[in-house]
């Protein structure tokens, strides 16, 4: 296996890291603002193929485009140069570089929440812990019957008002 020291010598390693970071930032921005690829392309005044390249993790364009993209998302790319030895030491101590980690964490939490919610609501993944299967089946049937009754009542419409008989 390759060590961190060896990896840092490959320019492609760092390029891919930044490309993926730009991809994550853009996806997050698009999700938050509910924008499509075409919308982003219009705003940047580029073709939608250009945007799809970014979304495929192939962003390798000019510095000016990077800054334009950042400004579109309401962010400024911060470029810093650090010694390789410093980064190696950071990694050894188990520190993560801060750039973009918050957003990816957020996305990770979001996706986790979503899967948990889906698990709660989906019929097939639901497995009762305390109740036995039969009990659970009976409860489900009761729920179903209640729902049916409700639907019937709704279909009937409001009940007619009672009027007193005249003597």
């Amino acid at each position, binding site marked *: 296996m390759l060590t961190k020291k060896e990896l840092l010598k490959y320019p492609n390693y760092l390029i891919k890291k930044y490309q*993926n970071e730009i*991809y994550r930032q853009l996806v997050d921005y698009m999700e938050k603002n509910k924008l499509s690829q075409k919308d982003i392309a219009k705003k940047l005044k580029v073709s939608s193929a250009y945007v799809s390249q970014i979304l495929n993790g192939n962003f390798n364009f000019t510095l000016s485009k990077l800054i334009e993209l950042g400004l579109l998302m309401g962010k400024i790319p911060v470029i810093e140069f650090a010694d390789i030895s410093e980064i190696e030491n950071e990694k050894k101590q188990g520190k993560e570089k801060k750039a973009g980690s918050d957003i990816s964490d957020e996305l990770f939490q979001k996706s986790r929440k979503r899967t948990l919610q889906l698990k709660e609501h989906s019929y097939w993944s639901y497995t009762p812990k305390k109740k036995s299967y039969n009990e659970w089946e009976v409860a489900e049937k009761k729920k179903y019957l209640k729902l049916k009754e409700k639907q019937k009542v709704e279909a009937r419409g409001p009940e007619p008002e009672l009027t007193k008989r005249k003597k």
Partner: protein
Amino acid sequence: MKRNGKWLIDEFLEDVKKDKNFEPELGELYATLEDTANGKMVPKNQYRKLRLSKKLKFGAYEAKSRHLRLYLIHDEQGKIIVIGGKKTNQERDIERLEKIIKEFAEYKRNQKIK
């Protein structure tokens, strides 16, 4: 994963390191693996789940660069990098991966019995 005292992935890495055209792509593969290991999102075309037969007990994943592929198995503890290969040999490599998964499942079963 080891076979005859040698890591399976090392065979691939040694081969690639000899070839100067493919060597830089190793960096790309490691970058995507590092991101996925840290729970970060990665474009679909770089890392995906392989659709193998449903009989296999472990899920398989593939990390991709232009010409190279890394194949992983999803174990209970995490993901294991098993083998690597070139794009041209993809089909053969996937067949090899299926065999390895079957062997691994047997090995696990035997361990549980013991």
